[in-house]
């Protein structure tokens, strides 16, 4: 019996983690975890900040979801105070949130490729992610942490002269996304590597209350954007993508197809965005409580705010999507091999950079295997499958053409 720790670093609010996989030979028989590495006590800090300052704080819950948390927080305060935001602000919120989904899913796809030994995919996906960050810098002034949202609307307008530029980036991106989708769906090696791996049933998904693409991949029809429309999602035409089996492949497919839906939403929003004010005056906030939700790239993001009538919230509860998705790792990973452990963890899309480091195999107190060794193991499996199927490495991603 050997114990392999994965972790410990994980960068979202309460989600840093250390997984301890218990293995027998190649097979994983049990799994346990420890979090707290990134626990920064954000909910406590928020109690000493005004509502305006809180926005900057919740933006830093997670760097990748830095539009989702502020929108969820605004939704919660607006729910509490009964504020209706202007039409134009709704469209701007949707545009920012969907651009974020594009960059986040591309980031995920790149890293997923990296974990199974397709470094080319990593570099390509991240290359096409750059123009979106360029757009963010153009629209908001910052590549990450956009500071666009405020209670009662948005902080900055999208200028009319920027619209053609945004449209162009999105137009340029679409054929690349189609290429990625084609490649991911057609590549036999990828299918062999991801299909049927890390499965979990619909019942597990319901019991563990999973959210977002992880739930949709298991066939659970939920999406906050449709179920409780905020921003401009009820004003544009799009559809919820559903998978069936909940394995790694279906999660990848759900995310990739969602990219195209995001492109669709952005195009419509850009075209139909009305002119007008971008924010409303916020009335005095009375004692009360409010709940706000947002569909972040990783799933439903939840904020609960309680006010006693003062300038600061007396309680802010934040629930990031990964918090509900991570516990399913246990049911998904047991019975799989060590070489699949990384891609199964990756498929939940836990905010990543954590899984990048500090994975060690400790055998009788002696380190025998590092994160890079485990990664090599995963990549070797891909190569083995390639050889068995009669491909050589140059054949990998033949579809990948500019």
């Amino acid at each position, binding site marked *: 019996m050997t114990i392999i720790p994965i972790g410990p670093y994980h960068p979202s609010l*309460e989600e840093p983690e250390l997984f301890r996989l218990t293995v027998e030979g190649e097979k994983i028989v049990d799994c346990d975890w420890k979090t707290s590495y990134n*626990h920064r006590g954000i909910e406590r800090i928020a109690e000493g900040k005004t509502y305006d300052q809180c926005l900057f704080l919740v933006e830093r819950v997670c760097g990748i979801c830095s539009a989702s948390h502020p929108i969820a927080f605004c939704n919660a305060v607006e729910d509490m105070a009964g504020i209706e935001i202007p039409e134009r602000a709704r469209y701007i919120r949707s545009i920012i949130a969907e651009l974020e989904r594009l960059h986040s899913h591309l980031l995920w796809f790149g890293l997923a490729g990296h974990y199974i030994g397709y470094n080319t995919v990593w570099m390509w996906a991240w290359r096409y992610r750059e123009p979106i960050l360029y757009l963010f810098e153009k629209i908001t002034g910052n590549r990450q942490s956009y500071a666009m949202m405020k209670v009662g609307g948005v902080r900055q307008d999208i200028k009319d002269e920027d619209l053609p530029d945004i449209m162009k980036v999105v137009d340029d991106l679409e054929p690349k996304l189609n290429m990625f989708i084609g490649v991911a769906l057609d590549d036999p090696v990828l299918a062999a590597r991801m299909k049927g791996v890390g499965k979990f049933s619909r019942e597990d998904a319901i019991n563990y209350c999973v959210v977002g693409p992880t739930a949709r991949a298991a066939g659970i029809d939920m999406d906050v954007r449709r179920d409780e429309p905020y921003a401009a999602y009820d004003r544009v035409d799009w559809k919820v993508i559903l998978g069936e089996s909940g394995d790694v492949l279906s999660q990848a497919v759900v995310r990739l197809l969602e990219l195209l839906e995001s492109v669709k939403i952005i195009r419509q929003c850009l075209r139909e965005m009305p002119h007008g004010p971008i924010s409303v005056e916020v009335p005095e906030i009375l004692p009360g409580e409010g709940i706000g939700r947002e569909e972040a790239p990783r799933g*439903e993001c939840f904020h609960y705010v309680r006010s006693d009538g003062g300038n600061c919230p007396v309680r802010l509860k934040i*629930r990031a999507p990964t918090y509900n998705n991570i*516990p399913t790792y246990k049911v998904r990973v047991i019975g799989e091999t060590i070489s699949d452990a990384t891609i199964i963890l990756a498929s939940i899309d836990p905010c990543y950079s954590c899984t990048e480091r500090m994975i060690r195999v400790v055998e009788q107190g002696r380190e025998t295997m590092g994160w890079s060794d485990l990664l090599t193991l995963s990549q070797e499996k891909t190569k083995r499958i390639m050889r068995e199927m009669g491909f050589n490495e140059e054949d990998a991603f033949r579809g990948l053409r500019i």
Partner: protein
Amino acid sequence: MAEEDIIQMVKGRFPDKAMEARQASPNRVYINVKKEDARDVVGYLFQELGGRLITASGVDTRAGIEILYHMAFDKKQYKIVTVRALVPKAFPEIDSMAIVIPGAAWIEREIHDLFGVNFIGHPDLRRLILADDWPEGKYPYLREEKA
């Protein structure tokens, strides 16, 4: 009215339990229950009405620690039903929901860490959120601890 529905349904299901319900807005319902009844009510919402547990929050108030279970009903008119139970600070104990809903295990461990609430019957109440060397018996989210 669809919104009234859920309150009537819960009250009709548990006629002998004292509870008080409030419709904050068309899609927000708050139900206050006694802490002994919380598991029954949340279990009913989860198992029979098909609600999804979003999360639980703890709030430290003058009267005691409030534990709120937020249940989502994505396909219904009432989007979020919050079940609220008050736990006295002197004996912070409540029945664990993790037996009924496996997805509640983590959030109850977290509330245990931050508020010192004991969840009776929780399968695994080890420390989750706070550091290994955090002092025992110190709960950062209780008012007395605020610097």
